[in-house]
């Protein structure tokens, strides 16, 4: 990153790398683990990533992803294991 671009030199207040709207677009493409982890980056990211609005949007995206779902018999009595996976 060049230092000549004043817009992106982050202030102690924790300014955004990009405007919030576009940062949200980026965050929506991350797996849940990264999102949780990135709450520790700075306060403004924490506020955005833990907001109800963001969680709702992320959930909607995750639900739309194709999922694998399968069952398997287990050794135990009267039990079936069910697995579901997604790319996030």
């Amino acid at each position: 990153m060049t230092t000549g671009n004043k817009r992106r030199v982050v202030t102690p207040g924790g300014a955004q790398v990009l405007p919030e709207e576009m940062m949200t677009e980026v965050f929506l493409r991350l797996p849940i683990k990264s999102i949780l982890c990135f709450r520790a980056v700075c306060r403004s990211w924490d506020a955005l990533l833990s907001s109800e609005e963001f969680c709702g949007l992320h959930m909607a995206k995750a639900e739309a992803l194709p999922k694998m779902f399968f069952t398997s018999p287990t050794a135990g009595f009267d039990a079936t294991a069910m697995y579901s996976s997604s790319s996030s």
Partner: protein
Amino acid sequence: MEVDKGKGEAEETRKVAEADRDTVTLKSSDGKLFEVSKEAAARLSTVLAGMIAGGSIDDNGTDLKQIGSEALENVVDYCNKHANSIPSAALISSSISFNTAPFKEPEEWERKFVDRLSHDALFDLVEAANFLGMERLLDVTCHKISEMMKGKSPDQIREVFNIKNDYTKEELEEIRQELAWAFYDD
């Protein structure tokens, strides 16, 4: 891609020529002119499509005061590359997207297109794509940034994106404990 347009054309001739041209001229905030395929601009940018349909395209260069020349050059480059590539089924279906639809993977050439950009150029391009209502380009650029972020620690993210840590040590420790599995369990 930059063009030097001849001055002194008669207004009437210019209007007729404009209607027949298959390119439009865009002007960056720093006054540089770029020519872009009209078809691709209208197809890829809702804002440019509206301007073309509404006749607010200026043959001397339509002013895009919010976009610098480097970002505009990349926008134009992207549009012109799109104009020359045969749209795949994935691209056609991506134009019909909903807020909840899963993201489409970038095409190979789109990946290469964003891979060569510096961080600043990439971020400027995200903003330009957003300003011009270019959903596909926004998708491709945001995908690239998310790829750069995946698997990185908060420390690495701060370094890459030049973000100041505004937490106290105690607060950070608290977050780490709360989200221990996300930090340490890979």
